[in-house]
């Protein structure tokens, strides 16, 4: 019995629509992009750190866009998983990774602060040039909840909320700051 295989073979899109040829320009562009990527330094593949948080958002696509734009995270683009019940993405800064997914009781019981009416955690991030980071986050619409300040333990830090209310603590060690300014 090969009915189901025959049916499937006939459902191959280029058999269903045989006069739908490949656009050769797609290949030309693809080759160009590959060669441009090869000429540029390739991103380093790092291991995921032993501890990394997963944050839940009602609109994880919007969150992803915001976090990259406002907080200058970079996405491990090849790791992104798009499924009908939500996208999972990994954002990096320095040697840290944070995972972003959709909220829901059925999704590990994780809720967005907007659903919870508060949050139960804060993600602490060391960045390079916290002053520039602060200006960028502010300009891109992050809600600053603690202003930029030198702290007695040796960090310069500020805290901000993202659009769904997750709390982020961004800091730079004052010693690094001094090294950078000399």
């Amino acid at each position, binding site marked *: *019995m090969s*009915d*189901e*295989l*025959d*049916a*499937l*073979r*006939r*459902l*191959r*899109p*280029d*058999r*269903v*629509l045989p006069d739908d040829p*490949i656009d050769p320009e*797609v*290949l030309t*562009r*693809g*080759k160009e*992009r*590959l*060669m441009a*990527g*090869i*000429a540029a330094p*390739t*991103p380093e*593949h790092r291991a995921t750190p032993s501890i990394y948080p997963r944050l839940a958002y009602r609109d994880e696509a919007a969150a992803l866009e915001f976090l990259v734009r406002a907080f200058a995270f970079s996405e491990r*683009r*090849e790791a*992104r*998983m*798009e*499924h*009908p019940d939500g996208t999972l993405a990994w954002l990096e800064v320095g040697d840290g990774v944070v995972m972003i997914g959709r909220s829901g009781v059925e999704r590990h019981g994780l809720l967005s602060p907007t659903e919870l009416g508060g949050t139960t955690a804060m993600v602490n991030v060391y960045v390079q040039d916290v002053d520039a980071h602060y200006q960028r986050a502010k300009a891109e619409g992050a809600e600053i909840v603690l202003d930029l300040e030198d702290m007695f333990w040796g960090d310069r830090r500020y805290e901000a909320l993202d659009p769904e209310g997750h709390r982020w603590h961004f800091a730079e060690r004052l010693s690094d700051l001094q090294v950078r300014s000399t």
Partner: protein
Amino acid sequence: MEEPDSAVIATSLEWPDAFGALFDRHGGVLLRFLMRRVAPADAEGLLGEVFRIAFERRGDFELERASARPWLYGIATNVVAKHHRSEARRLRATARLAARPEPVSDPADPAVSALDAQATWRRVAEAVTALPEAERAVLLLYSWEELSYDEIAETLEVPVGTVRSRLHRARTRLRSLTERAEDFGVVGRTQEPEAKP
């Protein structure tokens, strides 16, 4: 004679530009694979992703393998697995096209109504979409890409026995999901598929 892919990859470890030859050799096949599996608008982006990942991981390629095609198919299969929504969309759209009325349909046969065909193709598409990822991958590498068991095993880095059992399970599932349609015969009545090359 053209040097094998393994030699190209070995060279590219020291001279990265050499990797471009791999795109020349396999880019078209991979693009066609992606265009079958995901919405056409997504295929170009995914092709770029496949070759970028391949380039970054070229150090992992086992150089005793002459052809890089199964390895590239494997990377592409993983990339497609992350775009299930696009894949489901592609299958639904193809099912709709498959059901479009044939200009030479037999008016004497009332069973071959456009509605029956539509329902049947939709059921096949839904059945494929509902398969577990690992089974769908094997099934489509076999029936659409026409890879051999050995090639599929190399592509997915699993033993040949696993390929056989996954294919068997996928076919059984597909049959039970589509069999319930009394009009399944409609599918068998369209023209024969082309012979394998």
